[in-house]
């Protein structure tokens, strides 16, 4: 237990020591999205009745920040440790695969939520929000962060170079988040793309999260929750298997 706690602490300290880059910068980015998209689309787009576009956008941006930063945390920590070689400090001690999984993912969740909270606090000034179901907000934020933290862990284990990790991020994570309904409701899409969106697990995370605010969503939140939970269990078992086998970590 001390081993796990120490690794968790180290992972938190790692991003906290460079908080300008790991927390402040993504908050600023999200604010720019809100200002620009909100300004341009405020009077043209109405997704739900009685919800202004800027208000619709806020939960999407918060969730997008949570997801992207949870992913960035575990993946960048692992790839840096692998490339500089200091991963041996974690591989030599008697830390189990559960310890490693728990510490990396939990630290990622914390970073994701810290950035998400920051984005929320700042963007909430620009929009009138409601909180219909706060529990759903918490559940989807936590699960979403855990999923992306786990994906970051898997990507960090798999990647051998920074460009491989960047490819994972740019060709998988970025499109999946942007096409998940952060900026729009999938009901505004042509039927074909609506169908495609339903295969994107990120869509359910953001849709369920938004339901917590407005009580309105494209999909029933329970359905979203089930899909997201199953997705997490699948990813987590994959990550734990990789850690246990020592895939690409213990040659």
């Amino acid at each position, binding site marked *: 237990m001390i081993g796990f706690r120490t690794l968790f602490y180290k992972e938190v300290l790692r991003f906290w020591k460079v908080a300008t880059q790991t927390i402040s910068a993504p908050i600023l980015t999200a604010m720019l999205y809100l200002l620009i998209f909100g300004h341009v689309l405020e009077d043209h787009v109405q997704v739900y009745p009685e919800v202004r576009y800027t208000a619709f956008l806020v939960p999407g941006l918060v969730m997008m920040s949570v997801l992207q930063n949870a992913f960035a945390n575990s993946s960048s920590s692992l790839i840096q440790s692998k490339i500089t*070689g200091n991963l*041996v400090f974690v*591989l030599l001690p008697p830390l189990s695969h559960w310890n490693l999984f728990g510490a990396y993912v939990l630290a990622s969740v914390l970073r994701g939520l810290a950035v998400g909270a920051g984005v929320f606090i700042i963007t909430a000034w620009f929009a009138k929000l409601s909180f219909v179901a706060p529990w759903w907000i918490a559940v989807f934020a936590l699960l979403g962060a855990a999923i992306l933290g786990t994906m970051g862990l898997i990507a960090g284990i798999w990647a051998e170079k920074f460009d491989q990790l960047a490819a994972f991020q740019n060709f998988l994570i970025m499109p999946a988040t942007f096409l998940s309904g952060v900026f729009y409701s999938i009901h505004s899409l042509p039927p074909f793309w609506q169908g495609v969106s339903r295969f994107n697990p990120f869509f359910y995370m953001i849709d369920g999260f938004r339901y917590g605010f407005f009580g309105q969503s494209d999909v029933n939140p329970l359905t979203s929750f089930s899909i997201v939970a199953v997705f997490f269990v699948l990813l987590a078992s994959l990550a734990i298997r990789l850690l246990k086998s020592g895939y690409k970590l213990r040659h």
Partner: protein
Amino acid sequence: MAALQIVDIEKRYKSLQALGGVTLSIQQGEFFGLLGPNGAGKTTLISIIAGLSRADAGSVAIEGYDVVRDYREARRRLGVVPQELVFDPFFTVRETLRMQSGYFGLKHNDKWIDEVMANLDLTGKADTNTRALSGGMKRRLLVAQALVHKPPVIVLDEPTAGVDVELRQTLWKFISRLNREGHTIVLTTHYLEEAQALCNRIAMLKTGKVVALDSTSALIKRISGSQLVLRLARGELPDALKPLVSHPDELVAGRKYTLRVNEYTDVEPILATLRQAGATIEDMQLQQADLEDVFIQIMEGEK
């Protein structure tokens, strides 16, 4: 029970056979040397002991605990100083050592951390970020990290490569003390005089196989006697002495000859033969065989 039991370890990297059946049993309290040229498989073997690599066949146990099956118990008993100069640039020396203690499940370890830092002359750098350390200081930190949990078995993979005399002395003083206190030490090094001075027993590895395994003194005795190095000012080496020349090239080059002698009493007849042949000696040295000679002989003999 052996401190370190290595049985039939095999490891292959694609077409390269890195280790081809290595078996070693190292007892508690030994100062054991693992020698061999680059690429002999020393670091691969250490990686397998440390759990950083998985063997294709065979097993390694640390104080009876298998490094794969009982990896947590095994790793608690092992401290490894890796060969690469690695560090985590986010933290200071003290933070690094506290965290390393935590990974091994230790809380409130500051007393021992302070002692390790003092013994390795790191105390002055306790609050310095690892990024700002010199190469030698980074090496000290690596050694300290391997010792935070007072492991009964300590493995040092070329800890003195590119390190100044002062650190070497500090390091060996501390490691020898730990050895006297009962810690088992396994050392790889390219400095053979270091191995000769420190190790009680030595294994030599070549292309993944153990080619010699004996006590240091027995290994040195393998090279019978000493060598008499002669430089002649005038005259030729008499034919009677030519069979004693240990490097055939010298017969071609002339003037300088290295002759094998078993005992000191062999020297006088050689000098007499030279005198009779009318040769004059310009310079003469009697050299004792050392580990380096044994090393070269064994490595060449295994070609």
